[in-house]
């Protein structure tokens, strides 16, 4: 970390200031509106959740109840449904994000090489993003339907087996993943494509003159230069996948059984169907904790990069 350096850098920057306000006050003032909103609406619910996680709270049976110490944490830690939902979430996130990244980057290269029609292609790619999972999920359910769905109809026409996409417990999670891949791969592809188009020309021309192989150019020039933007997308997609709710709610409701019940869906079921806010809050705290620990490692490079770029003179 480079605190000491950054301090001296910002002192240096005090160039010709006509107003009396110092850089420091100005910079703090800029952050105030955003921080106010976030502090009130992020910390209050967090405080509420923390409070509730130490109490008995079945909302349908009156107000928030007595202090129960760490009992809710014990219950949740020994709740097999909770752990199975964690497992489902991990499986989903890992598979969906990997698929989206790989396919998205591949598609970006594919389109980048195209000579005409890029504008049209981009416009079509944005379609899944412009629709909500709550609505398109409904139509995917229709497409997946073994009786009326288009997918099985086409599979039947070419003589392939017709799976029960959302009803077969061995593949239901994959069907949800496929939907997520459909919705978010274009997002990854669009960003990777923009990244490709923004790359400077010179190093590549030089590499071509040197007669470097395509693979080598990719490995030594393209990917290192795209790395920051790809990493950003990766982080965004991971955060969103872990929080997946809409798609599950509309496609399978966690079924068959609990095969597709992700953490957030289990949280929803506990909090808004069973109204056990004590367990739900406890799970939310776990969730936040896991995310914080993960991001401490994953986000460190990004934040250091921000930090060091901000303090560059």
């Amino acid at each position, binding site marked *: 970390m480079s605190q000491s350096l950054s301090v001296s850098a910002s002192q240096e920057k005090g160039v010709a200031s006509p107003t009396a306000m110092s850089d420091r006050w100005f910079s703090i003032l800029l952050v105030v509106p955003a921080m106010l909103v976030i502090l009130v609406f992020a910390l209050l619910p967090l405080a509420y959740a923390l409070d509730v996680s130490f109490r008995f709270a079945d909302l*349908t049976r009156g107000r928030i109840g007595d202090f129960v110490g760490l009992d809710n944490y014990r219950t949740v830690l020994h709740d097999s449904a909770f752990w199975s939902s964690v497992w489902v979430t991990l499986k989903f996130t890992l598979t969906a994000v990997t698929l989206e990244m790989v396919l998205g980057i591949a598609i970006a290269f594919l389109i980048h090489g195209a000579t005409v029609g890029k504008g049209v292609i981009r416009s079509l790619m944005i379609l899944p993003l412009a629709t909500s999972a709550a609505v398109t999920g409904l139509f995917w359910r229709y497409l997946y339907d073994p009786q009326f769905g288009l997918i099985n109809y086409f599979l039947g026409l070419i003589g392939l087996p017709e799976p029960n996409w959302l*009803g077969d*417990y061995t593949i239901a999670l994959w069907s949800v993943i496929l939907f997520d891949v459909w919705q978010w791969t274009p997002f990854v592809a669009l960003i990777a494509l923009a990244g490709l188009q923004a790359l400077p020309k010179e190093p590549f021309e030089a590499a071509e003159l040197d007669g470097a192989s395509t693979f080598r150019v990719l490995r030594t020039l393209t990917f290192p230069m795209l790395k920051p933007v790809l990493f950003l997308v990766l982080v965004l997609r991971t955060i969103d996948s872990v929080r997946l709710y809409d798609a599950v709610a509309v496609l*399978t409701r966690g079924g068959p059984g609990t095969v597709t019940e992700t953490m957030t869906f289990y949280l929803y079921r506990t909090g808004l*169907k069973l109204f056990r806010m004590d367990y739900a809050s406890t799970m939310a705290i776990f969730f936040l904790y896991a995310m914080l620990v993960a991001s401490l490692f994953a986000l460190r490079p990004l934040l250091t990069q921000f930090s060091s770029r901000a303090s560059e003179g």
Partner: protein
Amino acid sequence: MKSMLKKGLLVAALMTSTAPVAMAQECVDADRVPITWSTIAGFYTDAMANLVAGFEAKNCVKVNVVNIDNSQLYNKQVIEMVGQTGAYDVVTLETSEKAEFAENGFILPMTDYFADKKAQLDDVAPTLAALTTQYKGDVWGLPYYTYTAGYIYRADLFEDATEKEAFKKRFNYDLAVPTTWAQHRDIAEFFTRKAGENLKGEALAKDFYGVGLMAGPFPEIQDEMSGVLWSQGADWLTDEGKVPVDAVEKAMNDYLALMKFAPPAALTVTYDGVMNQMKDGQIAQTYSFFLDQWPNAVTTETSVPGAKMGVAEAPEKKAYIGGFLLAVSASSAHPQEAMDFVAYIGGHDAQMEFAKAGGTSTLMSVLSDPAFAAPESRTKTGHFSTLLKIFDSMKGFRSNLFDTPFGAKIYNTMQIPLQSAAAGQIDARAAAEQLAAEVEKICGGPCPIGK
């Protein structure tokens, strides 16, 4: 203030009922008391708009109708009740939710309100009233719609000579509306055919299935299984508040035996999916199905050439008794007007209008009205006579599921182990044990039963 209001209800109710016309004349829009009714989305919207208008004409009240998706209705209402927002004056409750709302003080008892209107209460089909309106000796509102389950089938298949002959040959008894589960299973097996095979002597263009089931991730598989379980003399909860694991296992196994003859989509659909299959000519019969869908089912006769629909009591004569209860929220600012509204919508005149629009009424006087039994009303109210039979067969029936304040939570959880078993992930025994464990977790021990 609120208790004063409650005491004054009787008097006030008398006043409104004696002088409604005078009131309506004096009423200007600004004076109208606003009450809000939360109900199911798209619920006979036009008919309900007429009924609401009828109520507003007689009372100085403005009724706002809030439409909510059936699957979200429960939690949305609970949140508003817990938050004591008073946003909903009249709420719509499923049979299993009544005890929870009553026990936790979310809704107001209407026993006093109906004290002088006994005739109106007595008109509610007694079987339905016992299950949907009563809890711990009080009356909690009026049911205004019933989706009690029965048996809907393709009568044309049962009357076809070649099918009858083939059935007799294979099973050694006549093909007829089943009265036992064994018969029902036989019929389901009999009518399950592959594309290319014959049905009614003609080659099928697509697969045909013996039975349509609602085993999707919705709280409907338990409605179907209630019929099996209850007909075997068991209940979801014993009087000690525990799930009878052996009985549930047996019922589950019976259900699984039937699953084999249902289309694969059975694992993902609820009643509307089954109706779509019926209307597309993919299934021969239902299991224990919501009879309020009759007007919907009957359209099969136009969508499938030669089809004729029939309706009967479910095999073994036990089925889910479902009804939407109208009740008045405890946080309502205008409980008196809200109760008037409940009494109006659940009353004879409104229910007559409702039935004419295709709604399934809850009142004996409406269900037995000869006009609805006439052949020309068949497409809308052809199921009324069957409903009367079901109510008669199940007279005096109570289920502990509807008498525990945890009923709603149990009801909203049950489909998880049951669907797991239906999908073949776990066996019937495991499903029953899982259900027992879940229920114990929800109730925090044996479930209290409040009779």
